[in-house]
């Protein structure tokens, strides 16, 4: 069993290692710049650049361990960002100087929490499948984004905020700290707390969890609020630095986040998954993008390669989990 787990959890890191070696070697041959791919600074950037989707993907892990899915995270990300940047222009906010910053963060995070809560409540109270609920709210929330500012980008460039976001504490960028702290927090949640263990139990055998008296509805609600919060956190981290949000920002983030979670080995049916492996999945994707850019692959190749790699990983995972020839052929 431990050996199995080692293969399962180690696979993503092995994949990352392969990517690193491949891009370093290919980069030396193909890249026009003399900088090596495996440059320390570049690796720090890698972590930083993984943050926007990474923070969301980490939250998606607990949702998927539950056996649910959230397709609305991209729209939640955008709406929280709009609230974050727009709130700076509210009259009372302008009056309080830099104190507006934490308040704006609070508004954005609260937005995420509320949007997540709406999803969670609908899933809980109506019993409609999370896929459908969040497919709907993915459209609905995006509509709200457009409604909020009439299709225009929302901008507020606050240099204090940018300076904070660009800070490198102990060498790591602010965004990296948020990513790592989120990962640590969620890892503790999933492995050390009753809520986290219940998440596995529910995803693994919902009936059993219900029979054991775990209140599945509120549990879902909390998790949807959590991912709403994390989508907002991701927006806070990213837009503190960039200061302007287009209404279309965050589209397809849900698909990238799901991809990262699946690459990390979380079961789509729920009940199995790990935060650390999701972090691996996130890094693997960012590495792929970065590396393909580094060796000069063009847009079509990037699309093709990312799509095929996803399928290949799924295929390999299936092969690893086969029971051999004795398997029932159903």
């Amino acid at each position, binding site marked *: 069993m431990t050996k199995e787990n080692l293969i399962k959890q180690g696979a993503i890191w092995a994949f990352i290692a392969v990517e690193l070696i491949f891009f370093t070697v290919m980069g030396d041959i193909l890249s026009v710049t003399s900088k090596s791919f495996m440059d320390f600074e570049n690796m720090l950037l890698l972590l930083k650049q993984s943050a*926007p989707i990474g923070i969301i993907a980490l939250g998606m892990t607990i949702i998927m361990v539950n056996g649910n899915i959230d397709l609305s995270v991209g729209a939640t990300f955008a709406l929280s960002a709009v609230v974050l940047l727009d709130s700076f222009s509210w009259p009372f906010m302008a009056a309080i100087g830099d104190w507006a910053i934490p308040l704006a963060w609070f508004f954005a995070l609260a937005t995420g929490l509320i949007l997540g809560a709406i999803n969670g409540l609908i899933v809980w109270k109506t019993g409609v499948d999370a896929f459908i609920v969040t497919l709907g709210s993915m459209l609905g929330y995006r509509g709200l984004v457009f409604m909020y500012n009439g299709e225009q980008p929302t901008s507020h460039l606050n240099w204090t905020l940018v300076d904070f976001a660009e800070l490198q504490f102990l060498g790591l960028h602010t965004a990296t700290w948020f990513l790592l702290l989120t990962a640590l927090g969620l890892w503790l949640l999933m492995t050390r707390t009753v809520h986290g263990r219940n998440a596995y139990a529910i995803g693994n055998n919902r009936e059993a969890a219900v029979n054991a008296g775990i209140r599945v509805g509120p549990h879902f609600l909390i998790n949807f609020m959590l991912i709403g919060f994390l989508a907002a956190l991701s927006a806070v981290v990213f837009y503190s630095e*960039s200061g302007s949000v287009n209404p279309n*920002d965050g589209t397809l983030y849900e698909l990238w986040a799901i991809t990262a979670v699946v690459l990390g080995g979380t079961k789509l049916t729920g009940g199995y998954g790990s935060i650390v492996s999701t972090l691996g999945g996130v890094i693997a994707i960012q590495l792929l993008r970065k590396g393909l850019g580094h060796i000069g692959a063009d847009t079509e190749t990037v699309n093709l390669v990312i799509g095929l790699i996803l399928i290949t990983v799924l295929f390999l995972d299936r092969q690893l989990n086969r029971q051999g020839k004795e398997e029932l052929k159903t």
Partner: protein
Amino acid sequence: MKRTIKAMLACSAAMLGTAAAAETMTIGITQNNVGVDSYQTTYEKAFIEAADANPDVEAVVLDAGGDVARQIAQIEDLIQQEVDAIIIWPTNGEAVIPAVRKAKQAGIPVVITNSNIAEQGFDFVSSFSGPDNITQGARAAEIMCDKFKEMGTDTEAQIVQISGQPGYTTAIERAKGFEDRLPEVCPDVTLLESQPGDWNREKSQQVMEAFLVKYDDIDGVYAGDDNMGVGALNAAKAAGRAGDIIFVGATNFSVGYEAMEAGEYWGSIYQSPVDDAKAALQTAIDILGGKELPFLNYFDTPKITQDNMAEFDKPVF
């Protein structure tokens, strides 16, 4: 980054000596969203060709896929790779400003191409090279107004607008230029409604179909580019009302040019992605060469109508 083997060999040969490497300029570009339409694709091709043609230039060509986060990451990567200059086609004219500042702090000159960034960022940018989209919108308003005056309908004409993808600077600026200029030149023309066509011919066709049902009297259509303009034209043709409507677009695409030849489409703004790309690269080279440049390098985007189209070559995209 479609380099030939030859270019690769040249490149590795160039890397043999640092002296040689110092003479070549490494210029990185991060584009908005290649592959989403012909303009951007042609731009990329033209840029690569222009870079390949210049022995002193090595180009790192990247595409943000319309995602601002990815674009910022690419700017950071280019800074980290210590390129000599960075050209940015912004996905969002404001969100890239902090990243541009970083480039400035790292001592790397930045050229903005095609669609400018917001004023707050001007301090960190060496130069802008591209079309003047506000002027384009204004010119489109003039084209339309002149035609109405010629037809004598400028006192009562009703028009609709199909704008580009919501949130994109180019779309916003063109719409603004058009909407501001129209009342100045033709105060009696009414703009009935604007809907986005997302730079997409099919979407634009659907929007136009709905307009046609909703309004019995449409005298003109302004589309944020010809791709959408032709979509609207198709819808009007299907409804048998194309003859009553004056179509004006922007960024003259070959389909638009053909429709003008066929007499179905009145006018547009001539804007060549090849010029756009070459201008951007040249601006970067000039800056690296220490030339003094004006901050705004607009390349000319003239009016094109059925009347003067013979003066222009058919667009290649």
